């Protein structure tokens, strides 16, 4: 601006220092003026909204803040409150173990808490790529360790289950050169055969020599938020890989594989989760050979996983479709085989595109785990509706209990959502 203007005799060489904006535009007042009171209509809306917010807070905040924390029944709460309308938080304090652990034996709470804490150690290297890759070894071992901590029994069962995985992996490595897909199928078959035929007798024999046992806890003793958490994490962790396989299968050029995937996805998406849960709780017993003891929790985990996997598959398919064809061709022209191309080029990009939808499904799945209360599992909602609300001490304390359950879910879901936004920002490499 200071050069090239020939009609002006004097040209300033130093820029003027910026002047402070007029008060009416600056700071809080300026912001209020431009955003909330820019016109009469806008000002009226602002005032109405403010009043509504005030009215809500005026009703809720004292109810929360004046709540009673120290009482052993709703009657005691009422006595202490003397007619004031306020919460009876004492129920949460008194029933805390039941809400969180159900009927899990109190002397073993430590095991469940340890499994919970270790989950974050196991997740850390998956969620934050900056951490040492060696930590992934712990992630791989975690499911077996967590199973042992929560359900107890001899350590040899999870160890043998792990050996089954190793057997599958060895089979895979031996056949990988020939065909990746064939090797995967063979590995899966080998692992299944090992689990079904050898796990139980081997574990029993080894336990005879060296027990390494924790007190066993039955699935029906597990309850409260712990159920939601176990179902949610295992459902999410299992449905993502299954969903990826289904999405790839749906794109397959092999008609049989494609058809199986399409039918599975469309069928599961067309059925409400609660139906699948009923199937898990009652119907499966008809199909299983009599005498098989197939844990209800396991059945529910399978159903929840299948349900979420169908949705995951569709979310990932969207990501796959969004990839330009040139990416596949570039991978082909470099000589990468199908699985290398998928793993190294296609899926990293497709999954990145699908993160928002995957997170949506994960959060939905986590909240839907409360549906198991309908098939009489005592998750946090089942606990509240059943034993707690029907007890004589805490009859009718709905708001406090359901509010507490809501806050619990909110904390985890909000955490997942924040993480996914962070991840999306971190992975944004293409348009910088």
């Amino acid at each position, binding site marked *: 601006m200071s050069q090239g203007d020939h009609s002006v005799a004097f040209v300033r060489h130093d820029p003027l220092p910026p002047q402070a904006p007029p008060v009416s535009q600056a700071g809080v007042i300026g912001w209020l003026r431009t955003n909330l009171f820019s016109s009469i209509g806008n000002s009226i809306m602002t005032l109405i909204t403010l009043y509504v917010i005030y009215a809500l807070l005026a009703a809720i905040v004292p109810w929360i803040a004046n709540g009673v924390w120290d009482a052993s029944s709703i009657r005691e709460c009422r006595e202490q409150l003397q007619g004031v309308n306020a919460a009876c938080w004492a129920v949460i304090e008194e029933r805390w173990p039941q809400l969180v652990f159900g009927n899990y034996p109190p002397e073993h709470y430590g095991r469940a808490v340890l499994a919970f804490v270790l989950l974050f150690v196991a997740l850390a290297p998956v969620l934050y790529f900056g951490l040492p890759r060696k930590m992934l070894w712990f992630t791989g071992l975690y499911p077996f360790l967590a199973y042992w901590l929560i359900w107890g029994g001899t350590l040899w069962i999870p160890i043998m289950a792990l050996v089954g995985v190793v057997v599958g992996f060895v089979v895979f490595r031996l056949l990988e050169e020939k065909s990746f897909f064939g090797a995967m199928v063979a590995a899966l078959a080998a692992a299944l055969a090992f689990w079904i035929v050898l796990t139980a007798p081997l574990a029993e024999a080894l336990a005879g020599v060296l027990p390494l046992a924790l007190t066993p806890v039955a699935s029906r003793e597990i309850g409260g938020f712990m159920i939601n958490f176990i179902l949610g994490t295992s459902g999410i962790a299992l449905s993502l890989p299954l969903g990826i396989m289904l999405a790839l299968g749906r794109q397959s050029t092999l008609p049989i594989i494609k058809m199986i995937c399409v039918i599975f996805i469309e069928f599961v998406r067309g059925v409400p989760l609660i139906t699948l849960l009923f199937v898990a709780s009652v119907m499966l017993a008809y199909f299983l050979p009599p005498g098989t003891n197939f844990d209800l929790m396991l059945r529910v985990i399978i159903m929840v996983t299948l349900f979420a996997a169908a949705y995951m598959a569709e979310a990932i398919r969207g990501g796959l479709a969004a990839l330009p064809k040139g990416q596949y061709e570039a991978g082909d*022209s*470099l000589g*990468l085989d199908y699985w290398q191309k998928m793993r190294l080029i296609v899926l990293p990009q497709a999954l*990145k595109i699908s993160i928002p939808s995957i997170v949506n499904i994960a959060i939905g799945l986590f909240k839907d785990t409360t549906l198991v209360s309908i098939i009489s599992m005592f998750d946090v909602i089942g606990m509240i509706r059943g034993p707690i609300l029907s007890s004589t001490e805490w009859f009718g304390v709905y708001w406090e209990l359901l509010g507490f359950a809501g806050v619990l879910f909110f904390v985890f879901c909000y955490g997942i959502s924040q993480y996914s936004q962070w991840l999306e920002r971190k*992975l944004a*490499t293409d348009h910088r």
Partner: protein
Amino acid sequence: MSQPIDAAPAVPSHLEVSDEVAIEISGMNKWYGQFHVLRDIDLTVYRGERIVICGPSGSGKSTLIRCINALEEHQAGKITVDGTLLSSDLKNIDKIRSEVGMCFQHFNLFPHLTILENCTLAPIWVRKTPKREAEATAMHFLEKVKIPDQANKYPGQLSGGQQQRVAIARSLCMKPKIMLFDEPTSALDPEMIKEVLDTMIELAEDGMTMLCVTHEMGFARQVANRVIFMDAGQIVEQNEPEPFFNNPKSERTKLFLSQILGH
């Protein structure tokens, strides 16, 4: 771009063509459904040849070179690349693809990987080269295409010309015996075309066997030892650049050249 060489021999004498066959295509036909894209293609490419393929849009140039590394399937005839017969056997296809490099019109770099990772991916996974060694090779070729300083950036941060040079380096990292180019400069702004062509010229001087679909006739004159004209799925005419440009035999070639060289 490059000055037309009229009197001098079109092929620089130091660029020797051996009599060893690199690609042999005979009686090749391809259909897209009912549409007959390639008709009776016969083509023998010798090691060290630099062939430019031109022709009107839709004449099947891309399809032809994409058949050579099996990005497209042909329905009749034989294609032999570096002694390996191209069949539906996946092993053969993967072998041929790792010997044949390809550059695309739209670069097709992997946006989620850095430039260096783009270059080391295939050597590490296909050739099983140790990472260190693959990175050293990658840096060597990035220096060759004159962008070693961009190694840790992502493709999205580079200009089109730089991206295409990375794509060339990425292919070279596989140490291919043959390079295919499908209109490598036609998605570029004019000021970037030269840097890519210069890279390709250097590659030719190193003795690479090259098949280029391009309309850069200056490049064809300077580098090619043979120019092929395609129309309607057929090879209509092929010749050394000088007689090809100065003395085209077929009417279709004349028409095409008059359109592309302008007035």
